[in-house]
């Protein structure tokens, strides 16, 4: 029984390594296709519409509420130390460095990642990808690449919008409702936040964008050609994206702090 357990463990370890290798190879292939894909910018624009523009409403709404909660919680905490004037700093740093990129990436995986994965999975299940190959059209180049690039480009923009709306949300609660002085709110924020803090968020959201898009197109492209396979691909997209985003977030924070 013990030997069986060990064998199972080794097998799952091997499967994990295989998955990592397959992801790396797929990522490398997409990277090689990048210059050519940028020539078909019309396809990328269409995918940016799907992944970015259509995610705007959920991103803005979530950003507003996350910012408002930050304003409420931050005020409650800072008031105990009599330093509610630095609410702006706390909200801005929290949003720019952590909440903006991470929450946007999680929402992005749920909203855009699943759409990408199920679309590609359905194309696979209905033999559309095979049909393209028959017509000597490379489906990676024609279908996968624009989706990957569009998603990766959309993510930093979405995160920036999220952070901006969030800061206004915190301002709405802190200044309008709780009575923090608006001058203190903005000036303390400006004095404490550095360009590097904004850049940290931008770098994070770029990395998350690439990771989430890669996971979504990989899972969709490699899904089993069945109804169950498509469903599993979308689930895996969300699960893997979330774990990878949080893992990467820790590593990036440790490197950049």
């Amino acid at each position, binding site marked *: 029984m013990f030997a069986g357990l060990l064998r199972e463990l080794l097998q799952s370890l091997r499967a994990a390594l295989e998955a990592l290798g397959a992801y790396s190879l797929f990522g490398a292939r997409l990277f090689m296709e990048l210059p050519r894909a940028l020539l078909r910018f019309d396809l990328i624009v*269409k995918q940016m*519409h799907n992944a970015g*523009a259509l995610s705007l409403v959920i991103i803005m709404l979530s950003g507003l509420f996350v910012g408002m909660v930050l304003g409420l919680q931050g005020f409650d905490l800072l008031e105990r130390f009599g330093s509610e004037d630095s609410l702006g700093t706390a909200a801005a740093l929290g949003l720019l460095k952590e909440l903006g990129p991470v929450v946007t990436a999680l929402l992005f995986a749920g909203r855009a990642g699943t759409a990408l994965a199920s679309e590609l999975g359905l194309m696979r299940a209905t033999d559309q990808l095979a049909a393209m190959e028959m017509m000597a059209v490379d489906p990676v180049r024609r279908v996968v690449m624009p989706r990957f690039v569009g998603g990766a480009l959309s993510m930093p923009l979405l995160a*920036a919008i999220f952070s*901006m709306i969030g800061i206004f949300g915190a301002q709405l609660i802190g200044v309008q409702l709780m009575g923090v002085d608006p001058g203190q709110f903005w000036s303390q924020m400006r004095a404490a*936040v*550095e*360009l590097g803090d904004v850049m940290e968020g931008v770098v994070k959201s770029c990395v998350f964008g690439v990771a989430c898009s890669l996971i979504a197109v990989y899972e969709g492209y490699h899904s089993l050609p069945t109804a169950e396979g498509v469903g599993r691909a979308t689930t895996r997209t969300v699960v893997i994206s979330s774990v990878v985003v949080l893992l990467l977030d820790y590593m990036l924070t440790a490197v950049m702090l």
Partner: protein
Amino acid sequence: MRQTRAIELGTGLFVLLGFAALFFLVTQITNREFGLGDGGYRLSASFEQVGGLKAGAPVSMSGVTIGRVEAIEYDFDEYEARVTMRIDHRFDRIPEDSDAGIFTAGLLGGQYVGIGPGGSETFLAEGDQMQFTQSAVVLEDLISKFLFSKATEESAGKASEEAPQ
């Protein structure tokens, strides 16, 4: 055709909004007062003790930020800390006999360099060194001095009380 144009319009709006947000974050939330380039001219000053001064700390005159600390190094010729500051071009009329001191903003705030204007008619320029400096006050030193003086005072008081007997 109309659908494609609607898609392009939506994407355009999205990209515009994204970059506007990025621009807002960079310009309105951060403390960038001097633009991206490292314009301005450099001054240096030697301090016996810089305390907790860091590169990037503000340099101010009468509370107005006129520049930033660029580097802090140890000077083995003078056995002092040499602080290099970058001052914005707009503030190019600092008298050459001005003095520089290291102060703390508030009780727990960060440290900054404060410049007090002198009376000279000639002004400091690129690469000049400021002659008059005042070191940072180290709080622990101050407390130990205070306690020490208190202790000597007390023992002196006791001695004078005991003396008449």
